[in-house]
């Protein structure tokens, strides 16, 4: 259903994404890993059409995505929700309004500017919030919420779009381990229950291993690994991260069970 073909993005001299080719035939939960600057965000932004590709193409169910312009492009964006590391909510607005922003594309500009959302949308927004366990926060301002709660609001906004694909750009990078787990669990559950495709940039190996059906590794803009979590050995990970022999997976871990043994392991490292 999703076909990415030699997709390339250049910023001046710098090639951020270099001829990436990915084929996805059924809704899967896919993790993209790679170190900082590998091009993960750039790839996702091109998928959502937040930025234009320099070369190559994206097709979804036969439709050429890279060629879309104007309203058609926005329509694609409404079908392909995106979640950001910094949540990217409107901090001074209340939670329900933020979730309702997921319907902007379907409603007239004028109506949305005057807050004229249909009641059914408002109710659905609250149901989605309830599904993510934060319905009580509905009337609060987004900025008053904790990071984990804000990210769940962002997921709710994504669900409000009722998208075929959910893209998530390091959704847990600014969260503490407890919240990270809640958010990843939510994404997985959405994938499983609704059958939506989820593509998530992750900077921790173990998260990718634990939650994803398929892992893609990027390095310097190129796709250097594409396989199941099982195929992702420490050797492969070393290749992806370009690390030496001192590479320790735990150094990038944020999962809670890892953390519990962290202190001990770190102490060991000092010995």
């Amino acid at each position, binding site marked *: 259903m999703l076909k990415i073909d030699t997709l390339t993005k250049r910023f001046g001299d710098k090639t951020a994404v270099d001829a990436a080719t990915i084929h996805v035939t059924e809704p899967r939960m896919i993790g993209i890993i790679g170190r900082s600057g590998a091009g993960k965000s750039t790839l996702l932004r091109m998928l959502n059409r937040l930025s234009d590709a320099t070369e190559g193409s994206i097709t979804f169910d036969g439709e050429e995505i890279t060629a879309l312009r104007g309203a058609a492009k926005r329509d694609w964006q409404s079908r392909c929700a995106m979640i950001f590391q910094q949540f990217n909510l409107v901090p001074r607005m209340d939670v329900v*309004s933020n979730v309702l922003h997921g319907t902007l594309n379907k409603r007239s500009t004028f109506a949305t500017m*005057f*807050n004229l959302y249909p009641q059914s949308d*408002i109710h659905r927004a*609250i149901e989605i919030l309830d599904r993510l366990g934060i*319905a009580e926060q509905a009337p609060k301002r987004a900025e008053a919420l904790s990071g984990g709660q804000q990210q769940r609001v962002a997921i709710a906004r994504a669900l409000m779009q009722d998208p075929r694909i959910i893209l998530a750009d390091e959704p847990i990078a600014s969260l503490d381990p407890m919240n990270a787990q809640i958010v990843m669990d939510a994404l997985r559950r959405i994938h499983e229950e609704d059958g939506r495709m989820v593509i998530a940039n992750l900077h921790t190996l173990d998260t990718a291993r634990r939650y994803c059906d398929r892992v893609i590794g990027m390095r310097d803009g190129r796709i250097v690994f594409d396989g199941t979590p099982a195929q992702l050995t420490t050797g492969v990970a070393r290749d992806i991260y370009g690390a030496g022999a001192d590479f320790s997976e735990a150094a990038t871990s944020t999962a809670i069970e890892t953390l519990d043994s962290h202190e001990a392991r770190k102490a060991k490292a000092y010995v």
Partner: protein
Amino acid sequence: MSAADLDLVKSQADALFSRKRLFAVGLPGVILAYFVYIFFAFDLPGLAQRANWDNAVTLASDSWSYKTHVTRENGSGEMEYAVEGERKGAYPDGQRPDWVTGDDVITVDLGGGTLVRLLPDRRTEVEIPEFGLIKAQAEGREITTNLTGDLPDWISASSRRVGITTPEGRVTITGSKTEVFNYFPGWELFWFTFDSPYHGHGFGEILFGDRIDPDRGNIAGAVSDWWNNAMWRHRDVAWAIGETILMAFLGTMGAAMLALPLSFMAAKRFAPVMLIRAATRRLFDFVRGVDALIWTVVLARAFGPGPLTGTLAILITDTGTFGKIFSEALENVDQKQIEGISSTGAKPLQRYRFGVIPQIVPILLAQILYFLESNTRSATIIGAITGGGIGLMLTQAIQTQKDWEEVAYYIVLIVGMVMVMDSLSGWLRGKLIGRSD
């Protein structure tokens, strides 16, 4: 969450959104209602009627074109040729535009086939393609013509006066004289008037050609003739611009110099005596509240018309404004630096000099430069009231409503002047304070 709880949250959200909607629709509604009130209070329906679009057209076309008058005194038969009908723009004796020909019968070719013939015995003929020949005979105050029936609206004829307006030009005939106006694009005589020997010569010719006026070098002569051009008066315009900028500069700087010591008296930290502080603040509020407009009026009696009066009006008002801004800046100074200086045993003046001044200088400079630019604009307006600078020239040119090309010239100069002052002050700000602040 239980279904009951969820319903509660939903109804809360519904209420929240009806409140938001009320606000989102109500605020624009109030503004709309205000606009409706204004629509009638300002009599906009009446305005549409009153608006005179002919004036707009005159203005638009006159500002980039000029007309040459050909006038015959019907009594004496004397001819006059003058740009804009002004004495200063008159053709010297024996010269006339090349679209005027003939001696007994003088033919004025307005172009497009439109011809005006000034015949002996106070007769005038106007030949207009696709309309025909109009004949007029002046006799005493009476005008007799061959015009009959319904006339098009571009002809206005009575027994005393005939006016014809075509796209090519305009003709008016009265008992005493016949006038033909021929329109051309451009600002004629902008460089040299007819009495200058350099009129009609190109730049190349003046710069590199032979000496045109035997008494003077070409460049010196041309510059002097241009500078003293009686039609466009470049010298006076330059003086007026200079006067305007002078008013802004002196007013702003003078105000800043006056406000700085006063602002110390209005800042809590430096004037512990409540009475002095309150008095100084009220003084600032007063001079600001009276406003430059009223100050110009008050000062006009004492100092008469001229740039000094405008300068003082700006100076007095801005002393209030600067005083307020400066004293606010002073209240916010960082105590640490002052304490650091104090701890070395510095004297009070030294404390101000090194503890306070370095802190407020950037704020002061930024504000002063900002006001310098905005006062250039104010000085234009104040000049129009006190009688000085480019503002007066502009208002008078607009009020007499004939020299729209001069109006256009002044507007271009004023906008240019303000923009130059704007970028100058921006550049200085960057230079003196640095980008970071």
